[in-house]
């Protein structure tokens, strides 16, 4: 399913291919950014690619046990980090390019990310990196699995830095978009402080919090792709560009919400049980 999707996607992105007749009249007249006729070839390609990869990524091993499940979640967390590390590198090169205007870098960026291709890649790169990492950990050695723990940033000062910057960026984005100013650069940088937040430890990080983390990450990746597939059919052309831009922040955003909600619930019930212990005495 993913393979024909990739082939079709490649043709759409690089050769501007459209399946003849696979579209419909959406509006009476063409407006700027709202073409009357919409072809669904690119939607089909994206659905095939993402759907296929999700099926491969989240189908069980022949013998799925607690360790393979653990490795899976580990690889997922790692993949998100790797994906955004690549993204950060891309942003930095683009920023350097903006200042220096070097022909060489400009050509390189054009080659890998001309126009909106980088945004298009981001729709499925987390899944591709995840699969590479997962199968590497499973099959690197013949006889046993490779165990790699995920490293996190220390709680101090990274948690505070991540939170402050994320909130500051979010506030600025909202403020500027109300004033109708350009928020593109702010928005593109927002995922990075969020990632610092995601990867900084709790004050007391333990085994259980680690498990909640992995769980929340899996949930956020699932949610991200469900949202993406729905959006894929609900928005077209220019609207879908907003979806793709939005897609940069959905995974860390959903993760942070789920993770902190779970922690909040645990801490609340913790306070209750601490009280009831006292009552028993």
């Amino acid at each position, binding site marked *: 399913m993913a393979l024909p999707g990739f082939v079709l996607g490649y043709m759409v992105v690089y050769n501007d291919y459209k399946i003849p007749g696979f579209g419909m009249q959406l509006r009476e007249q063409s407006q700027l950014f709202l073409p009357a006729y919409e072809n669904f070839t690119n939607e089909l390609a994206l659905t095939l690619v993402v759907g296929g990869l999700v099926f491969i990524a989240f189908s069980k*091993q022949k*013998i799925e*046990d*607690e*360790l*393979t499940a653990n490795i899976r979640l580990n690889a997922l967390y790692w993949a998100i980090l790797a994906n955004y590390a690549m993204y950060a590198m891309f942003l930095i090169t683009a920023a350097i390019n903006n200042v220096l205007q070097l022909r060489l870098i400009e050509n390189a960026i054009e080659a890998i990310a001309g126009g909106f291709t980088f945004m298009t890649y981001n729709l499925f790169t987390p899944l591709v990196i995840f699969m590479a990492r997962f199968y590497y950990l*499973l099959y690197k050695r013949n*006889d*046993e*699995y490779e*165990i790699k723990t995920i490293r996190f940033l220390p709680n101090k000062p990274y948690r505070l830095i991540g939170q402050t910057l994320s909130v500051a960026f979010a506030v600025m984005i909202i403020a500027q978009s109300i004033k109708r100013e350009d928020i593109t650069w702010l928005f593109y940088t927002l995922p990075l402080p969020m990632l610092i937040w995601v990867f900084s430890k709790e004050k007391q990080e333990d085994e259980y919090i680690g498990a909640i983390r992995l769980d929340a990450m899996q949930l956020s990746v699932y949610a991200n792709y469900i949202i993406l597939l729905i959006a894929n059919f609900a928005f077209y052309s220019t609207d879908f560009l907003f979806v793709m831009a939005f897609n940069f922040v959905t995974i860390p955003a959903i993760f942070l919400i789920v993770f902190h909600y779970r922690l909040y619930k645990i801490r609340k019930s913790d306070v209750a049980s601490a009280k009831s212990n006292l009552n028993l005495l």
Partner: protein
Amino acid sequence: MKNTLRVERAIKNITQADLAEAIGVSRQTINTIESNKYVPSTVLALKIARVFGKPVEAIFELEDGD
């Protein structure tokens, strides 16, 4: 954490694959535990101990620095 899984298997004369099948995990998982790289969950540790008919502490042991 260290364990005496390899010794226990030798005493009972069963292979990694036998043990893996008895507790419903993959053989690689048993091997990864035996080489002290993976700390199994309490449930898995209890299942392993039940196969050998011994308490968990007889098979798994804390090390300095755990």
